């Protein structure tokens, strides 16, 4: 079990940012699942339970807060950590993210090494 690859679900609407996170995590030995909006992500989560979720905040259709609320209603996902990724980095944005109960806040532009390190810490690997 220990060396089985962990799976990260990435929910992000901007294609280049998605590509970056996917490639970064794949290079660093993770499996990735990607969804370009919240609705698709909630569909995916009905079928699979990832080890961790990276969730963009500013998205059309359903924003990150709503997606997060839905995730937290689902007890099957209780143990799945959700990290918010956002280019809105004003103090008010960060406070809102913390209040909403995300496990962490990652400001964009991401620090690639820092993000990988953080994910490993959350997964205790």
């Amino acid at each position, binding site marked *: 079990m220990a060396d089985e690859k962990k799976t990260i679900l990435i929910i992000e609407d*901007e294609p*280049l*940012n998605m590509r*970056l996170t996917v*490639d*970064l995590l794949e*290079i660093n030995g993770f499996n990735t699942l990607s969804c370009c909006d919240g609705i698709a992500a909630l569909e995916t989560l009905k079928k699979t339970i990832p080890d961790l979720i990276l969730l963009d905040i*500013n998205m059309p259709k359903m924003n990150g807060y709503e997606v997060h609320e839905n995730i937290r209603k689902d007890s099957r996902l209780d143990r799945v950590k959700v990290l918010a990724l956002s*280019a*809105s*980095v*004003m103090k008010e944005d960060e406070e809102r993210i913390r209040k909403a109960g995300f496990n962490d806040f990652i*400001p*964009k*532009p*991401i620090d*690639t*090494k820092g993000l990988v390190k953080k994910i490993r810490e959350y997964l205790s690997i």
Partner: protein
Amino acid sequence: MSRDELDIQYRDIVENANSIILRMDMNGDVTYFNRFAQNFFGYRQEEILGKNVVGTIVAPTDSSGRDLKAMIDDMALHPSSYVSNENENVMKNGRRAWIAWTNKSILDEDGRVREILCIGNDITRLKEAEEEIIKAKEAAESANKAKSSFLANMSHELRTPLNAIIGFSELMKDDSVGPLTDKQKEYLDYVWESGKHLLSLINDILDLSKVEAGKMELELSEFDLKELLKKSFIFIQEKAVKHGIALSADIKEGIGTVKADQRKVKQVIFNLLSNAVKFTPDGGKIGITAEKTGKGEILVCVSDTGIGIEAKDSGRVFSEFEQIDSEYSRKYAGTGLGMPLSKKFVELHGGKMWFESEKGKGTHFYFTLPLNVG
């Protein structure tokens, strides 16, 4: 002077004073109306005596809808609340004017209020000016709000492409997608550094606009300043080694835990050190010292043996977007926001920032931090 002569003299003063002087009884009926009032409001004496102020010089409601009839009624009940009072009045021809009134109760032998003596001065122009100021202030506030939200949007929009620029550069730099030639590596470094520079620029502009809007708050915490100062050379180590610049630190005893905004203090030191390496030619020296002063503050100095600042240019160092044009500074990327922001951060803590410099010899930048912030 006889009693009669005195009476005439007083009457003359009241009649001819350059103020509105009137008396009214407890119903609000006019019992006296001086000549100035007659000229001002356009009523002859016989037209107004015995008439109620409401309906003559007081409109039932003023132009903002305030109920002036109720005010006059209340005045008869509570004269002491209207010792000085500003309200809108109306002239016979319908023109409105703002008058500042002083009102004095006139008592009878039993001590009951019989009449009210009112002295008024036209403050219409003052009021208009005041309204202009309020309007201008509101306009400025809404412009400021628009500016803040513009900056927040700009910051968000710029960060999204920067995420790709910085992120993909980092992926390539690590050789994780295959080895690069030296030239490719060099160019990639430029892309990455420029991306980082752009990011720090966005952060500086956001910070500056917050300071200017008076919205920058200190996030105070206790931290070890000695540690922070000792570790600060990490910021410039690589460049210093590359340019043969010697680094030395002298942190005096007693510099330990302080209560301040750690992120901002760190940024000030980073800005000072990055200027020091930027403006010091190869083989120079950079030092950092810290000591307690007798005045309950810590004095930090970042010194270099660089190009120095001429006295005539010294005013520009702390001005936004100003860089001293020299053959040297042109070689280096910069925006001219580092020092103005640093100074503001220091001042938010209640400290000061200044420098001493000699052209060609080097520069000493100083700042103080009070031991007890907040």
